[in-house]
C-alpha cells in the first residue's frame, strides 16, 4: 500500500537525517509538541525558521563582502558578524539543525580570532548545509503528509 510505503520511507529518511548528523534531539522535542490540534507544528516552525533566517543570511553575505570582482576586500566587521551569527545559531539550534549549528559555532570562533578567511570559508560550508537541509526537510514533510494522520496523532498529551 502506498501509505505503508510512505511510512517506511519516512522512517528511513528520518533515521538518515539523524544518523548523518543533520538533526538532533531538539527536532524530536518539537515533534512531541504536535497533537491533533497542532499536527504540523514542526513543519510550521521549520518554514518560519527558513523565512526568518533568510534575512540573516543576506546580512551575513553582505557583511562578508562576497563579491565576484575579486578586488581587495575591506576588513570585516567581526563584531557585527558575531552578533548576526549569535541570532542565527540560536534559531538553528531551536529547530534541531545540528550541522548548521556546529558550522555557526565555527564561524563565531573565527570572528573571535579575527580570521576573515576562516569566516568566509565556514560560512560557505554552513550555507551549503543550510540549503541542503531545507531541501531534505521539504521532502520529509511532504512524506509526512503522504503517510497520513496516523503518523502524527499517536502522541499522548
Amino acid at each position, binding site marked *: 500500500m502506498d501509505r505503508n510505503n510512505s511510512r517506511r520511507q519516512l522512517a528511513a529518511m528520518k533515521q538518515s537525517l539523524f544518523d548523518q548528523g543533520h538533526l538532533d534531539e531538539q527536532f524530536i522535542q518539537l515533534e512531541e509538541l504536535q497533537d491533533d490540534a497542532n499536527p504540523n507544528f514542526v513543519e510550521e516552525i521549520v518554514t518560519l525558521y527558513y523565512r526568518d533566517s533568510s534575512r540573516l543570511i543576506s546580512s551575513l553575505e553582505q557583511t562578508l563582502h562576497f563579491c565576484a570582482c575579486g578586488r581587495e576586500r575591506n576588513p570585516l566587521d567581526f563584531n557585527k558578524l558575531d552578533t548576526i551569527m549569535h541570532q542565527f*545559531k540560536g534559531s538553528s539550534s531551536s529547530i534541531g539543525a545540528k550541522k548548521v549549528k556546529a558550522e555557526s559555532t565555527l564561524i563565531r570562533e573565527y570572528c573571535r580570532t579575527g580570521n576573515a578567511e576562516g569566516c568566509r570559508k565556514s560560512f560557505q560550508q554552513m550555507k551549503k548545509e543550510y540549503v541542503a537541509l531545507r531541501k531534505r526537510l521539504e521532502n520529509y514533510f511532504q512524506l509526512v503528509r503522504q503517510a497520513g494522520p496516523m503518523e502524527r496523532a499517536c502522541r499522548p498529551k
Partner: protein
Amino acid sequence: MVTTGDVGVVGELHVLAVDDSFVDRKVIERLLKFTSCKVTVVESGTRALQYLGLDGDTSSIGFDGVKVNMIMTDYSMPGMTGYELLKKIKQESSVFREIPVVVMSSENILTRIDSCLEEGAEEFLLKPVKLSDVKRLTDFIMSGEGKKVGGKRSQKRNRSDDCISSLSTTCSTVSHPCDLSSLSPSAMSSKKSRL
C-alpha cells in the same frame, strides 16, 4: 495593577514570555500551551514592562490588571537584556517582585547564571528549552511554592546551597552540554534540590 499567585478561573497559569527571536517565541509559546498555560509573548523587555504596566505609562493601558504567574525571558536581547528586565522587576513593589522570573540563554556561562540567580531569577534554563523544563516550572508554580520568594537573596538560594556549590563543579564538567543526552544541562543550571 498586576496580581501574582492567583491562578485563573480554570486553574491556568498565565506566563509572559520575552524573546527577540521569532522562532524561539513560537517554540516557547507552543511549549507553554502544550502544558496548558495561557501565554502572552512579547519581543522585548520594554514591551514586557509595558504589558505589566511597569513602564510608568499605566494610564495608557485601559484594562484593570494583568495576572501573570511567571515570566520567562531570553537573556541576550538587543536594548534591554533579560538580566536588566529581571532587575527591573525585582526592584519593583512586592507584588511584582513575587512573580517568578526564569531566564533562558543559549550560552552556558557560569557568571551569567550566577548573577541571574543572585538577582532573584527563579531558574536559569539553557536553550533550547525542553518540555520537561517547562513542566517542572509549571508544576512548581502550581504547587504554590512560587509565592514564597523573599528578598533578593531568597531563602531558596540558601536551601539549595548544595546545588549551587556543586553547580560550579557540575557545570565545569559540562563542556559540550548539548551533546550530553543523559544529562539535562538546564536541570544542572537550576536549583534542582527543591523540585
